[in-house]
């Protein structure tokens, strides 16, 4: 039987954080607005800039000081991460009025599969217009939409064309790949970063078409799976389904923290490791998981001379008791740390199993911890994460209090 060609869209929100803020603050409608990590500090980073600010030369990820130099009347707003998550979710719900197959890919990008519902709404381009209008009416966010027969081409149609044309909508059918996508320079290919770009140019691969016409064996030999992946992307081969349940599968629970300055003393680093372990274990306990693989990672302070490691260890029986996990975390850390200053640390627990049943032992050294944690978790659920914390977290090095007020490292 002939299989129907799919109708896939990628909906991308323009300057998402800034657009949401502008909708919430109509008084700034005609002003250049940025959302910045920490508006009080000129060293804060620009997280999002509205089109008016971009026109003045402000770019995402630059320092606030530089941005204000280019645009003195800049309105600087503090991020409200929970609010952005809520709006993103609201957009998911709006998109679900067109199809039940909606997959959020990031906070401002979502995939849709309209193959089996498009007959209800009209031609794909017309559906895209309805989507733009609906989202604009409800949230004030302008969206750009790439349309194609698979996810990866829809993504590239959006990034390379829909974001640049007037309508904000671009359909890239299979038959146009050669004529439209292949002439683009190779760095426009999805997943090609600056490093890969250099490698590819060195091989004489300048355009997406060049890569598509390179023998697969050559790329496989050079870069293995990643080489094959890029080749498939260039040829527009992507069978991945739009998967709404994709976020349900949890492979592991991890937390990572970038420190406000370099830490190098053992006592300070131990505070952070313990805080991270506590966060990870608490999340596991809330979700009813235990893990048996513990990993620790860290990165040095000097970005030009990268140092750091990422190591893991499997323990005998799965657990979610903070003190038990922390023993292994400490041990891993001290085995692999070379003593150089550290800027970011991460702890994670993987190979998760349900905590409904666990191995009882006659001399369970963590029995007390378990009941203590039950009590502290209960307090935190009720009064927030900052209600009770370990005494070491109150020390100068501690980050727990600060972190309790944040999502993704930015203010809630």
């Amino acid at each position, binding site marked *: 039987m002939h299989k129907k060609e799919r109708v896939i869209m990628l909906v991308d929100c323009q300057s998402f954080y800034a657009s949401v803020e502008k909708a919430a603050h109509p008084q700034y409608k005609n002003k250049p607005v940025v959302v910045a990590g920490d508006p009080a500090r000129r060293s804060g980073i620009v997280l999002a800039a509205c089109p008016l600010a971009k026109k003045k030369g402000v770019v995402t990820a630059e320092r606030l000081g530089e941005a204000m130099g280019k645009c003195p009347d800049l309105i600087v707003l503090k991020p409200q*991460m929970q609010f952005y*998550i809520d709006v993103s979710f609201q957009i998911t719900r709006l998109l679900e009025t067109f199809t039940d197959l909606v997959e959020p890919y*990031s906070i401002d990008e979502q995939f849709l599969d309209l193959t089996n519902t498009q007959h209800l709404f009209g031609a794909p381009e017309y559906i895209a217009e309805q989507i733009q209008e609906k989202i604009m009416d409800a949230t004030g966010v302008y969206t750009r939409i790439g349309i194609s027969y698979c996810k990866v081409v829809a993504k590239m149609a959006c990034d390379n064309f829909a974001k640049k044309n007037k309508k904000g909508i671009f359909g890239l059918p299979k038959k146009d790949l050669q004529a439209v996508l292949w002439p683009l320079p190779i760095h426009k290919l999805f*997943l090609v970063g600056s490093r890969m770009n250099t490698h590819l140019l060195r091989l004489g691969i300048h355009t997406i078409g060049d890569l598509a016409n390179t023998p697969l064996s050559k790329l496989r030999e050079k870069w293995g799976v990643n080489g094959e992946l890029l080749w498939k992307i260039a040829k527009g081969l992507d069978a*991945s*389904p739009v998967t709404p349940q994709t976020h349900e599968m949890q492979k592991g629970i991890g937390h990572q923290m970038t420190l406000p300055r370099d830490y190098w003393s053992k006592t300070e680093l131990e505070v952070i490791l313990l805080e991270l372990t506590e966060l990870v274990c608490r999340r596991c306990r809330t979700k009813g998981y235990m893990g048996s693989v513990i990993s620790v990672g860290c990165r040095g302070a000097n970005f030009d001379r990268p140092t750091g490691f990422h190591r893991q260890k499997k323990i005998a029986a799965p657990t979610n008791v903070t003190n038990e996990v922390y023993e292994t975390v400490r041990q891993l850390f001290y085995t692999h740390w070379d003593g150089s200053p550290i800027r970011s640390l991460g702890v994670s627990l993987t190979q998760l199993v349900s905590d409904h049943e666990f191995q009882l032992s006659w001399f369970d050294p963590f029995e007390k911890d378990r009941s203590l944690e039950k009590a502290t978790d209960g307090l935190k659920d009720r009064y927030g994460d900052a209600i009770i914390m370990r005494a070491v977290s109150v020390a100068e090095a501690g980050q727990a209090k600060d972190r309790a007020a944040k999502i993704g490292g930015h203010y809630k």
Partner: protein
Amino acid sequence: MSKKLEGNGLWESSRMMLPEHKERINLYNEQRKKKKKPQLIDEQVGIISQRLSDSMMDDEEITIEIFNENGKNQFVTGIVSKMDSAIRRIKLQCYNDDCQWIQFDNIMDVK
């Protein structure tokens, strides 16, 4: 070893999702999966109340099926010791001197 070339692997390995965002989505999906209690026909309601009062009158042991929104209904066995029609609940006396109040509206079946 790498799953980038299978299933949804390309997107799962490349995406950036805040854990709080994922949680928001999952919470909603869980709620959506929850079952609604089916409406019982009058006849079935009649049978249920008959069996409940029989149990109370004759000290007869019965098993009650209680609706659960997760899809897995709960079963409890015992003897009805009290019926409170004003707040529509019954008291079930179980084996080990345990007793349980059951909301009449949550009862799916009685055997």
